[in-house]
C-alpha cells in the first residue's frame, strides 16, 4: 500500500514535468503549425538560468523566478528572427528549429563547459509519508506544475486572449478578418510556450544533473505524450503524459528502466495505430 502510494507520487512527478514541457509544444504547434525541435534546449536554458543566478551569488528562488522571464524573452527573439520566416513551410520549421537546438546546445557548452552542474536543493527537508521519507521539494514541483497547468487552462478557456488564440488555431484567416492580430498572438504564444519550458527546466534543476544533454530526456517523452494524447486539444498532452509517465515509472519500478522504454514505445505505437488523432481526439472530439 505505502509502496504503491510512493510509486504514484513518483509517477505524478514525472507526468507533471512532461506536461509542462509538452503543453508549450502543443500550444506552439496548434497556433503556428511549428514543431519546435529546440524546445528541449529551451528547457535547458531554464535550468542554466538558475545555474547562472547561483554563480552570481543569487538565491535559487530568484533563479526560478527569472528563468521563465529570461527564456520567454529568448522565445520572443527566436520567433522574430527564425520561426516567423519559415512557419508556413512545415518541413523547414523542423530543420530550422533543429539547427537552433544544436546552436543553443553548443553555446551552452562554450559558456558553461560540457560537464554537469549541480543546483542547490532549496528545500532539503523530507516528510514522512506512510513511514517512508519523501523529499518535500518533489511535492513543491508538483504544486508548481499543477498551478501552471491551471493558469494555462484559465488563460486559454476563460480570457479574451485565449478565445482569440483558439480562434486563430481553428481558422487563421477568418480570425484575422475579424480583426485579430495573428502576428501578435504568434509572438505571445511562442514566448509563453518557451517560458513554460524554461520554468520546467528551472524547477527540475535541483533534482537533475544540469548538463547540455538534459533537454533530450524530456523532449522525447513530451513528443510521445503529444502523439499519444493528441495535438488537437490542450487536454491532449495531459492524457498523453499520464499514459506515458505512468507506464514508464510503473514498469521501471516493477521491472527495469530498459523494459520500461520498450513498454512505453510499444504502447505509443499501439495507441497511435488505434487512435490516429490521439486519446483526446478520441474522447473530446476536436
Amino acid at each position: 500500500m505505502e509502496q504503491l502510494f510512493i510509486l504514484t507520487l513518483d509517477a505524478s512527478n514525472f507526468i507533471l514535468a512532461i506536461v509542462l514541457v509538452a503543453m508549450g509544444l502543443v500550444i506552439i504547434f496548434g497556433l503556428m503549425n511549428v514543431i519546435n525541435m529546440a524546445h528541449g534546449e529551451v528547457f535547458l536554458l531554464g535550468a542554466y538560468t538558475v545555474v547562472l543566478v547561483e554563480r552570481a551569488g543569487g538565491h535559487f528562488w530568484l533563479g526560478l523566478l527569472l528563468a521563465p522571464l529570461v527564456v520567454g524573452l529568448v522565445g520572443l527573439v527566436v520567433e522574430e528572427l527564425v520561426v516567423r520566416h519559415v512557419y508556413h513551410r512545415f518541413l523547414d520549421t523542423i530543420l530550422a528549429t533543429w539547427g537552433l537546438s544544436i546552436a543553443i546546445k553548443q553555446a551552452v557548452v562554450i559558456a558553461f563547459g560540457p560537464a554537469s552542474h549541480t543546483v542547490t536543493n532549496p528545500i532539503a527537508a523530507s516528510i514522512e509519508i506512510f513511514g517512508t521519507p519523501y523529499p518535500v521539494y518533489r511535492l513543491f514541483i508538483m504544486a508548481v506544475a499543477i498551478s501552471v497547468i491551471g493558469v494555462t487552462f484559465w488563460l486559454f478557456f476563460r480570457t479574451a486572449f485565449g478565445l482569440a488564440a483558439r480562434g486563430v488555431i481553428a481558422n487563421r484567416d477568418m480570425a484575422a478578418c475579424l480583426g485579430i492580430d495573428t502576428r501578435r498572438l504568434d509572438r505571445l504564444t511562442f514566448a509563453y510556450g518557451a517560458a513554460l519550458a524554461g520554468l520546467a527546466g528551472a524547477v527540475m534543476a535541483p533534482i537533475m544533473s544540469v548538463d547540455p544533454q538534459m533537454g533530450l530526456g524530456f523532449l522525447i517523452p513530451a513528443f510521445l505524450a503529444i502523439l499519444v494524447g493528441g495535438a488537437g486539444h490542450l487536454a491532449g498532452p495531459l492524457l498523453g503524459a499520464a499514459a506515458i509517465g505512468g507506464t514508464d515509472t510503473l514498469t521501471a519500478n516493477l521491472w527495469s528502466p530498459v523494459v520500461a522504454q520498450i513498454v512505453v514505445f510499444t504502447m505509443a505505437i499501439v495507441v497511435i495505430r488505434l487512435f490516429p488523432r490521439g486519446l483526446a481526439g478520441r474522447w473530446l472530439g476536436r
Partner: protein
Amino acid sequence: MLTIEGLEAGYRGSRVLNGLDLEVAEGRIAALLGRNGMGKTTLMRALMGLVPVAAGRVVFQGRDIAGLRPYAISNLGIAYVPQGREIFADFTVEENLRLGLVGKPGGAGAVPSAVYRHFPILAERRGQKAGTLSGGQQQQLAIARALVGRPRLLLLDEPSEGIQPSIVLQIAEILRTVAAEDGLTVLLVEQNVEMVLSLAADCAFIENGRVVARHAAAELARDREILHRYLAV
C-alpha cells in the same frame, strides 16, 4: 466611401482581377453579379487583404488600404462574411460572436444586445455549438459575427448559397433593417437574382475580372433581358 481603381490581383501564376473599377457610395447596398470563376470571391478576398494586390488602388474612407493586413483592414471598419460562412463550428454561438469583438480596440466586452434583437434565433442558441446550427442559422451567425464590431462597410460573399429560399428572403429582410438602422454600406456578391433585387440598389456585372456594366436594381427588375445577357451560361 469605397473606390476601387484598376485593381489587379490573383494567385500564383494566374491573375483573376484585371483592372477592376468599382465604386460603392456611403449608405448604399451594392451588388456585384457574375458567373462562377469571374473573380467575385477573389475581389472580396483582395479587399480583405487575404489575396495580395498586384496593382491598383482600394480607397476606403479616403485611405488606400491595398497591401494592409487583414486584421488592420478589419479594424478600419470593414467586415467580411465569406463564402461558405466559415463559422467556428466547435465554438459556441456566443464565442463566435465574441470573436468578432476580441480583436477590436478595447473590444473584449459583451455582445451588443442589438445583435441579438436582429437575430433572435442566435440569442436562443447562444450556448450551443455553432456546428449544430442549420445552414440558415449559420449564415445568420456569420453575418451577426461581422456586425458585432460595428463596421462601416460589410462585404457579403454569396449569403444565399445552400440556404432555403424562404430563409434567404428572411435574411435579406434582416440585412435591410440593419443597414437602414446603422447607415451601413454593403457590398454583396451574389448569384441569386431574387436576393439581389430584394436587397440592392446598385448592381454591377463582372466578367473576366473586370466590371463590364452597371445598372440600377429597379432597371433590372423591369428588364430581365439584361440579367440574362450577363448571367446565362
